[in-house]
């Protein structure tokens, strides 16, 4: 009995491994000079690699208490703006370019994001920063797998100085297409695959955060929670497993238009990053206003107590 179940699981895994090869391999079109998720081992060996910028997005106090040597502090809050009553909006381009300049980043830099994996929002702060960097025109963005917790657990080198970068004069090409307005995501319902990346309780409508006016999800959206991206140790799940999860919910077609949202645009970046940067889906977008903005619109079709 058990053996047969195992065999079946292996066959399924192989099937998805083939799928991954088919869709991810040379087809994926996204030229990268760094893997989308890097290990502590890799990072420790490459600490002084040319063009590498390590950005620590944890609170400044945590950074000062101990960080990856040479990494620069840029607290998560520096990467988002509060606008029109939405808590997590993109920075204005001038503020974003100032921030990138102060970190010495150029469009060809390889940026490794170091964050905490202590909570689901913090896990996705990392991908939200990655999305913002890519929006700003930096293509080579990576996450440190397992976050600072894993780095410390593995007893890797730690510094307590406050490193400053040699400032650059950042000028990049904004990739505006990856950010959706409310009108765009509403127009996508029924046409694109709209992905709700919050935990199922929120999707179903039995849970709600205070800053979102109504419980439930956008009609026709599918549920694919970002907290499920990592294993219990805060490590990114294996690529074939992620591919299988994605294929099961959004389908295997990498050309399909996909739109992600959540409460405020943090969780939405988790699957955005994995779908596009790890799995090679080519047409993935994110609505940074998310439910906070959508639920204020009486015309947005928000439904609850249904999985459809």
């Amino acid at each position, binding site marked *: 009995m058990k053996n047969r179940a195992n065999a079946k699981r292996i066959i399924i895994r192989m099937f998805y491994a083939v799928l991954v090869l088919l869709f991810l391999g040379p087809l994926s079109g996204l030229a990268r000079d760094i893997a989308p998720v890097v290990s502590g081992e890799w990072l420790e060996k490459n600490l002084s690699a040319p063009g590498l910028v390590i950005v620590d997005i944890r609170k*400044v106090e945590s950074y000062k208490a101990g960080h990856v040597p040479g990494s620069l502090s840029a607290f998560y809050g520096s990467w988002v703006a509060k606008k029109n009553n939405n808590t997590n909006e993109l920075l204005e381009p001038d503020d974003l370019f100032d921030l990138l300049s102060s970190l010495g980043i150029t469009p060809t830099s390889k940026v490794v994001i170091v964050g905490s994996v202590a909570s689901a929002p913090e896990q996705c702060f990392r991908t939200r920063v990655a999305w913002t960097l890519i929006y700003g025109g930096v293509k080579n963005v990576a996450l440190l797998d397992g976050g600072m917790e894993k780095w410390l657990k593995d007893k890797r080198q730690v510094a307590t100085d406050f490193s400053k970068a040699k400032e650059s004069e950042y000028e990049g090409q904004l990739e505006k297409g990856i950010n959706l307005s409310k009108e765009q995501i509403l127009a996508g319902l029924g046409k694109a695959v709209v992905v709700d990346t919050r935990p199922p309780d929120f999707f179903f409508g039995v849970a709600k955060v205070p800053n979102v006016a109504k419980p439930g999800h956008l009609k026709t959206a599918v549920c694919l929670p970002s907290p499920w991206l990592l294993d219990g140790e805060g490590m990114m799940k294996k690529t074939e497993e992620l591919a299988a999860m994605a294929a099961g919910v959004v389908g295997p077609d990498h050309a399909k238009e996909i739109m992600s949202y959540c409460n405020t645009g943090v969780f939405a970046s988790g699957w955005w990053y994995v779908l596009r940067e790890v799995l090679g889906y080519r047409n993935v977008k994110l609505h940074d206003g998310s439910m906070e903005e959508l639920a204020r619109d009486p015309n947005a079709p928000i439904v609850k107590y249904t999985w459809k």
Partner: protein
Amino acid sequence: MYKGVLVDKGLLESDPHFAQGCSFCHKGNEESQNKEAAHKGLMKRPSDDLETCAGCHEEIAASYKNSLHYTSAGQRHGVMGRFSEGELRIFDVKIFEKSCRSCHASCGDCHVKSPAIGGVSTGLLKGHRFVKKDEGKTCALCHGGRVYPEFTGEYGGVPDVHYQKGMACADCHSKGEFHGVGGPYTSRRDVKGRPACIGCHPAGQEKSKKAKTAHTMHAGKASCTSCHSSGNYRNCYNCHEGKGATSKPGFILGRNPRNKDIVTTLRLVPTVRGTFEEMGIKMENFDRLPNYWDAYPHNIKKRTERTRSCTLCHSERKGFLTKEDLIKDGSKANEELLVVPKSLTK
């Protein structure tokens, strides 16, 4: 085991503070093997008695005795202008000594362990090391209702640019504000060397012409925070002795009550006409002082909606206090703070 109160063993040998044993500061009976007996007469907060530290840090202890963090005189100073002489005497006995003074800082609150908030402390800062500073675990807690969350952006806003650049409280606030200035004083304005924006950002050193122009036009007319405070900060409403106040975010512009030529960010202070009513203090001079005071929100940004748009102040008057906004039954002095900036189009 809970590590919050675990003393780092290595310190006992290396740190001069421990040379004379624990009981030197904590009293109790070091010889006893029995908890009850050993803890008899134990002082949990030895540095509340400044003598504990004075033996070796004489000057600091002598000066600290008069500092606002120890005397809480600033709080008294803030309200006393509203009292008659008789009322001040009642206030001092019934309220100041009992309630305000209770939240003063001991040396250890900044140097040894996280201050207890609502009776709870997270324990020693670093295994009982006597640290120079650790703002995130000390200042952050006592100033955690307003200043600290504003600074890190956790109060629903965005982080202060100085926090973003790695600065902490003591990078701007200097020793005079912690250890006092020597003799007695009643307001933080008496401390020389307290921080000022202009002290670190002198006029004329701007990188951009845009900044230079805006600054030249407003020198002596609008404060730095009026343009650079990024948004809402905490305002307290309707405080009643023993019941506390309610707070909500807001952003208010008006004349600085201390210098009416300048427009600045204002904060509503919680004292209302009835605040001390139950203690028999009517506040005979209530109307002498306004209910709004100049505020220094710790939420500075280079660009804000006001640095982006001149018309926000000059025609829309966004954020400016109006007669309709004034709190009900407030001080008569409030009206002097109202201002209508000139329209830029003639």
